[in-house]
């Protein structure tokens, strides 16, 4: 899966990322870094512990990362949950979480495929 295909698979905006980051190289590097990003885990942990502040911080950071990488597919639900958590609305956040989870899995899945592709092709 090429970089462009990877973006298509997770409903990201490839052109915007490439233009802002001035070329493929940075987009690719940041995308791979995203695999190690901990903000998603912070969000889940906060939700589990019913710690609104922690969940909010995780969601907020995740949202920022999505924005920087133009990962629109994941950005949308993350944005929703961030706003719910900002107003300390745990109930709505719980309802929104599955959307975030499924978008996150799509995104990570696509990035994994991309990673394999470049590792094989060098």
């Amino acid at each position, binding site marked *: 899966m090429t970089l462009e295909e990877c973006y298509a698979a997770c409903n990201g905006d490839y052109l*915007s990322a490439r233009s*802002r*980051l*001035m070329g493929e190289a*940075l987009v690719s*590097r*940041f995308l791979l*870094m*995203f695999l*190690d*990003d*901990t*903000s998603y885990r912070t969000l889940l942990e906060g939700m589990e512990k019913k710690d609104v*502040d*922690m969940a909010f*911080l995780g969601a*907020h*950071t995740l*949202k*920022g*990362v999505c*924005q*920087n*990488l*133009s990962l629109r597919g994941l950005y949308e639900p993350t944005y929703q949950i961030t706003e719910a958590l900002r107003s300390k609305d745990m109930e709505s956040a719980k309802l929104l979480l599955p959307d975030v989870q499924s978008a996150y899995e799509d995104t990570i899945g696509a990035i994994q495929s991309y990673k394999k592709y470049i590792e094989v092709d060098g």
Partner: protein
Amino acid sequence: MGEDTTQKILIVDDSPMNRMILIEMLGEDYSIIEAEDGLSAIEKLQENSKIDLILLDIMMPKMDGFETLERLNQLHLIDHIPVIMISAENSPEIIEKAYTLGAIDYITRPFDVRVVRLRVNATLALFENQKQLLTRLQAKDRLEKRKIPVKGLMVEDEFYENADQRLRHYFEDNSIASPVLIAMHNDYFKLLSEWSGASVSDQYLETVGNCLLKVKETKNALVGYFGLDNFVVMMEEDWDSIHGLIRDIKESLEAIRIELGFTPAYGIYRAIREDVDLAPVAMYDRALLALEKSMNNYMTRYAVYDPRESVNIEQDIKMLNRLEYAFKNKEFHFYIQPKCDMISGKIIGGEALVRWNSKNDGLIYPGVFIPVLEKNGFITRIDTYVWEEVCKWQRRWMDKGRISLPVSVNVSLTDVYAINVPEYFKELIEKHNIPANLVDIEISESAYVKGGNLIRETINRLKEYGFRVFLDNFGSGYSSLNLLRDINVDVIKIDARSLDLKAGNSEDRRGIGILETMVNLAKQMSLPVVVQGVEEAEQVRYLTQMGCRYAQGFYFFRSMVVDEYEEKIKVEEDIDTKREQVVEKDSYRIQEFFTDHIYNDLMLNHLFGSVVEMELYQDELKILKASDTYYLMVGCNDRNDPYYRVSRKHIHPADWQPILQSFKKAFEQRYNGSVIDFRFIKKDGDIINFHAKIFASYAKDARKYFYACVENVNHYYTINSGAAVFDGGGNFDYFRGLN
């Protein structure tokens, strides 16, 4: 910036991913220190004194960005370090809070590599400048603690302490007249010492210092010296004395042959009773703000601080938000103002000017938004946008198979600090495949004065790439051969507005004199001149007589949208593809005529007839001086005879009003003067018909001074016909005086 002095940036963000992104963007040019929260940021700052810039995330666990900012302020850790806030939040309240807490800029996610680099570069460059200035001032101050130009001037601490006392008296006692604080300084001073040597600049400081001591003595003023050429005065608000001081400094500097452009500019702050909480330091800052305004005006050397124009952060933020929005919505456009050949009337090119056409507020003038833009590096985004739009348009015009004319664009000092301007232009013309000679680059004299070597290098590189460089606003501060020798430009632009060359302006003659000097300097350097701000027919007349050929201004064309400009230049006969040329001398200028040839008095009399110098005061005209031929002509044997000294006696009463009118006209049309015919009554009762050309010389208080060439025209008049007034253009406008 040298090799081993890489600037350090502290990135404070809890997300490693976000830190990595910024490091990728900035790591090549700067050395980066990371902190994952506010506390560790404080530690890093405490152990590392040499951090140049902080990028601070707002949303962080434990201590958020705002709290961190407050703590850093309390600890005085960021007194001299700029902080840029970063966040995905773009609500005005949050942005406002950031600015209120002292952030210098605000970058929102998602990051654009160019924007991040640009804003970081611009902020660092601006601070670098300030830091250098500060260290220079401090170093100089330390060095020169003993070296105050003249004894009796106070240094900063002492001055402020005394000023504070005076202000307190003023606030407590309603009968005390309000004081003013006057800051004086001239950016060009450093050129004076560079070019003329330390002894001249020492003499300068001593002279100004002595003038201040006089007001200390006579007006009980507080006078101080803050290093370099920064002087300060606090005195009672008495405008006669203030003007007197300014005049005294000017004249004293002239007396030691220091040119007008080096005389200080003045910023005046008027204390009011509401200022009770305002420290003298803050008043000095405000006086400096006013000073900045007067710096670039040759004619008015002082400006008074106007609180309405003060930097209002709240408004700035609102404006900034609107600008961001406007930029995204493509509300900025470029207009073109044609430049033309005044003699043929043909267009030779244009200047691209930015206009903000707001969907909500209509056309907003650059004066409103440019100052806000310049403060935060945003200006470069607009500038580069205009540069590219101009290149695109030139390409489209070429593609239509039309003849191309150059369009000039403006480059500011902020641009030069923020990006590599020559490379940027080179890439632009390569990208759009247009020749470099279709994009001219205008850089202002003040940018050159403030930017020094960096500007010089930029100009040289641009020229290397084939661009023509215009020195914009030449003479706005200091005009001299030195400046032109020092800077390698192709064309000089002079702004007529900065010389107040309006008809009827009492400073007119001085303005014209300065203009003429500048035009001559340019000629000596073989540099073509474009005069901008040409607004009146009268200006065109004397500009062409002076040997100026090219003009820009609404007398010829106003700035217009691109479509309209295209209409103007699509007809081949209306344009001239020759670039600005130096005007060759093809006629003698009168002064040269006299220096190159030796004329005797008789020949001069033949040329001019009789010359008379007069004073008009309260309806009475006195002859001050006249040539021999004049006395001969009127049949006067005794020059002290009051009959010949006071005109009321020897001018026909019916011609008196027309004569007064013609004197008035001479003041209105200072360059062309006025012409009048009148009757002179000789002592023996005979009448001579005179034809006179009258020119205004100057006015002092209620007295006006004139000179005139007078000629006997009896042979034209067979009968007594009354007076006739001509306007300067030679139209006969008869005032038949006989009823």
